[in-house]
């Protein structure tokens, strides 16, 4: 562990020192850099602009460090310093030479503040510098991030870069930028018309905005018409991608519902036990993730994979304990189990409050789950949601296999169909009960790991999902895993398609009312159990 830590630190150090060429700032830059340490936040922008235009040392390191909020200066010498924070230790190094400054303490240095205006500027300045970056993906991003602010200087830079550009995809993006500029600033109507034609096929929001402007205000009729045609095409595409986006939102909400409900589908659906403490099993799983991250602060990237089996065990054991201590004694009295498990849920919530504090706990999102994949400027899918949809389906498949292909599954099905007959065949029903309840609770724990990435990890986490989970199971049909799957995705998608029309609150109310009415019509849900076991 230590070693890994040290290696990481070394690598990061290396990264910084390589990006910082051991150059010294020129004479022209020095007073500007000094000014940077003294200037008020609101007056810092011109200083930075002068620095960008100045000759001499590469300002990339300065801008990047500043953008990350890691730029400090030594109070005495006013020399600029980069800070590298890892956990509770902060290391300082000279910004330009990269030399480590281990003797500095935190009260000898002062932070150079940044605000959003500066961050915005720094981002663009870095993009301008990156137009000749060796990586073509970086170049593409650089050009795209310049779209929103295409001044003559920037356009000049892009134009020069375009001449030497080899990559086809980067060329395309650069052409869009140039066309955008021409469409906005050219005095010649034919040139604008050509620019509008060049912009065809691009879905960038800036393109759409520019076309809107042209379609409304351009003096030339043909330009207005061409812009309108382009606009209509984009809107058509936007509508389709909007639909796909909404579908994705619905599926993602559905997968959350599925994860939350699937454990309940086992305890409630197969065993017939109303487990009001089900939400707290989810909560235990989420807290397990928190504890894992607390114990292994250097392994955030892997923490979820460690947490999944652990959460299964923690919640599973808790479930078995509850079954052995309480539910066993209430066999065949479903309404009483409801009350007893509600009591257990209160105790568990308060326990978590006492042990972990009532405040929400921090669960970090690993790097590989942050951000989104952009399919095109109109459609991007967030990674965490994508992973959770996949994860929910995976858990569902595994559960299905466990129930269909293993001896435990066989026993579980036998007991749920006819307890007395199973007993007569030599199945130890009490043990199967405990295992089933443990399995259902364990799955809820796994759901908790996934939910810790989407919502707050706090004592009320379970409460937020319990009613929804019951709705999903009842709607899908008790005792039918496929029903739960269909119900979860149906409710998720329905909710997300109603939401834009009615707002979030009314959407959830409407879904609830719909379920209430549906159950009156079909009391056994979408896929009722058939045969004698159903009675």
């Amino acid at each position, binding site marked *: 562990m230590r070693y890994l830590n040290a290696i990481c630190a070394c690598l990061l150090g290396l990264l910084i020192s390589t990006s910082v060429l051991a150059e010294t700032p020129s004479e022209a830059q020095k007073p500007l850099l000094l000014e940077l340490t003294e200037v008020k936040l609101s007056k810092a922008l011109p200083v930075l602009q002068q620095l960008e235009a100045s000759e001499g040392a590469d300002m990339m390191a300065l801008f990047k460090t500043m953008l990350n909020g890691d730029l400090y200066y030594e109070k005495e010498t006013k020399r600029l310093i980069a800070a590298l924070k890892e956990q509770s230790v902060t290391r300082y190094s000279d910004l330009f030479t990269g030399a480590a400054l281990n003797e500095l303490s935190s009260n000898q240095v002062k932070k150079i503040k940044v605000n*959003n205006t500066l961050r915005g500027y720094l981002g663009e300045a870095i993009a301008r510098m990156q137009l000749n970056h060796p990586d073509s993906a970086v170049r593409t991003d650089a050009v795209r991030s310049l779209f929103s602010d295409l001044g003559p200087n920037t356009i000049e830079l892009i134009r020069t870069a375009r001449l030497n550009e080899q990559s086809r995809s980067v060329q395309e993006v650069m052409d869009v930028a140039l066309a955008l500029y021409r469409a906005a600033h050219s005095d010649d109507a034919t040139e604008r018309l050509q620019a509008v034609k060049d912009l065809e096929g691009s879905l960038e929001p800036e393109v759409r905005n520019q076309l809107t402007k042209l379609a409304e205000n351009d003096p030339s009729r043909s330009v207005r018409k061409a812009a309108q045609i382009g606009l209509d095409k984009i809107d058509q595409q936007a509508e389709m991608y909007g639909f796909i986006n909404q579908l994705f939102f619905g599926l993602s909400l559905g997968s959350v519902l599925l994860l939350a409900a699937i454990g309940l589908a086992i305890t409630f659906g197969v065993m017939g036990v109303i487990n009001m403490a089900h939400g707290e099993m989810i909560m235990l799983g989420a807290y397990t993730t928190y504890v894992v991250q607390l114990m292994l602060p250097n392994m955030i990237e892997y923490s979820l994979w460690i947490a999944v089996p652990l959460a299964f065990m923690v919640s599973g054991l808790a479930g078995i304990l509850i079954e052995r201590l309480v539910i066993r004694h209430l066999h065949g009295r479903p309404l009483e189990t409801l009350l007893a498990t509600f009591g257990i849920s209160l105790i568990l919530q308060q326990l978590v409050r006492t042990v972990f504090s009532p405040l929400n706990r921090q669960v970090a999102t690993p790097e590989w789950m942050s951000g989104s994949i952009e399919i095109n400027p109109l459609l991007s899918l967030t990674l965490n949601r994508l992973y959770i949809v996949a994860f929910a389906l995976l858990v569902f498949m595994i559960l299905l296999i466990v129930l269909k292909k293993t001896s435990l599954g066989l026993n579980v099905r036998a007991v749920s169909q006819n307890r007395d007959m199973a007993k007569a065949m030599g199945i130890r029903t009490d043990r199967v009960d405990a295992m089933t309840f443990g399995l259902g609770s364990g799955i809820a724990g796994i759901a908790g790991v996934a939910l810790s990435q989407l919502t707050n990890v706090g004592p*009320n986490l379970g409460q937020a999902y319990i009613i929804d989970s019951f709705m999903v199971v009842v709607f899908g049909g008790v005792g039918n895993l496929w029903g739960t799957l269909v119900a979860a995705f149906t409710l998720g998608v329905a909710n997300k398609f109603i939401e834009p029309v009615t707002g979030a609150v009314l959407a959830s109310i409407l879904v609830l009312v719909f379920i209430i009415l549906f159950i009156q019509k079909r009391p056994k849900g979408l896929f009722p159990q058939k045969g004698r076991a159903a009675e």
Partner: protein
Amino acid sequence: MKIKHLVSGIALTMGASVLSISAMAADTIKVGVLHSLSGTMAISETTLKDTVLMMVEEQNKKGGLLGKQLEAVVVDPASNWPLFAEKTRELLTKDQVDVIFGCWTSVSRKSALPVLEELNGLMFYPVQYEGEESSKNVFYTGAAPNQQAIPAVDYLMNDLGVKRWVLAGTDYVYPRTTNKILEAYLKAKGVAAEDIMINYTPFGHSDWQSIVSDIKSFGAEGKKTAVVSTINGDANIPFYKELGNQGISAEDIPVVAFSVGEEELSGLDTKPLVGHLAAWNYFQSVESDANTAFISKWKAFTGNPDRVTNDPMEATYIGFKMWTQAVEKAGTTDVNAVEQAMIGQETENLTGGMAYMNKNHHLSKPVLIGEIQDDGQLEVVWETEGLVAGDAWSDFLPGSKDLISDWTAPISCGNYNTVTKTCSGQNY
């Protein structure tokens, strides 16, 4: 025979306890603390209870007040709104406290208010709120909308050049009123209706996908866009996470929040929040001698070096200071005398400068806007030139623009209509 003995025994002990209570009452000045210690609001309110206890302890070390020691009476309304009324009555009649520090949510204050007015109690309310209220029996030391929301919008409009506005809030009174005020304010400033998007979500909302995607497309129309967030508590983190995941950074679309402070940020993964804004009257990061002293005292009192301070704590601090000054000025803890003595009191802000209690029972305070940093602190990026006087009745709502509050003679009214020259709805 036996029963007679029993009854007289009970009567004796009860009488004794009554006696001892009245004897105690003569010796100490009682300070009631009405903050939820359990339930959903416990997270926020427990801190304020500890703040009051710290202030009481400190005052007692200085020799108490009017030569008497202060005694804190703590009750737990358990985040249950009707219980706030019940516990207020308990504090005022059973414990006979001289002053109450308490409440967080608007509904808890509304619940306690009729009891305070009936029994002529005195309460200090330390949280930012929607305004539209001024009671003789309450002093409001948190921010009114014009001390938080309007300066924040001014900052976004003038300094960041924001042209399009998303007003996102949790569906309850504070966001509703604040957004009503902001909408009217923005329209008065010439913002077109299609450049304002208003959205409400339920408490604890966690699925922000559609709303964030709406905000994203609303902000992609070429004009600088900002979100003014009155989203409450728990719903915030999923909201900011979703913003981060959908690739919206603070430089693109900044979010300015009125309910996100140091306490809410402590122990959270602040990575997705860096650069977003918050508007308050106090930040822990502000450097002043008073603040440094307050923070170290707080850390010592709680025995936890990681504890943070926040705006409602400062409001409690100012309220407590002013109350002790007013009691000293009046020479008594009698509610009517203290109420009159409170008006015009001045005390030091923790961020430097003085806070001033106005005739409408609201404070004049500076307004600060801070950017969230990666360590969970907020760095001041803008502040008002001078003090801003809290406005009980908003000038931007049709129902209240003619109302003023003035608790000095000759008006002596919390909602005086300047047009009809009447004092409406006061029955005391």
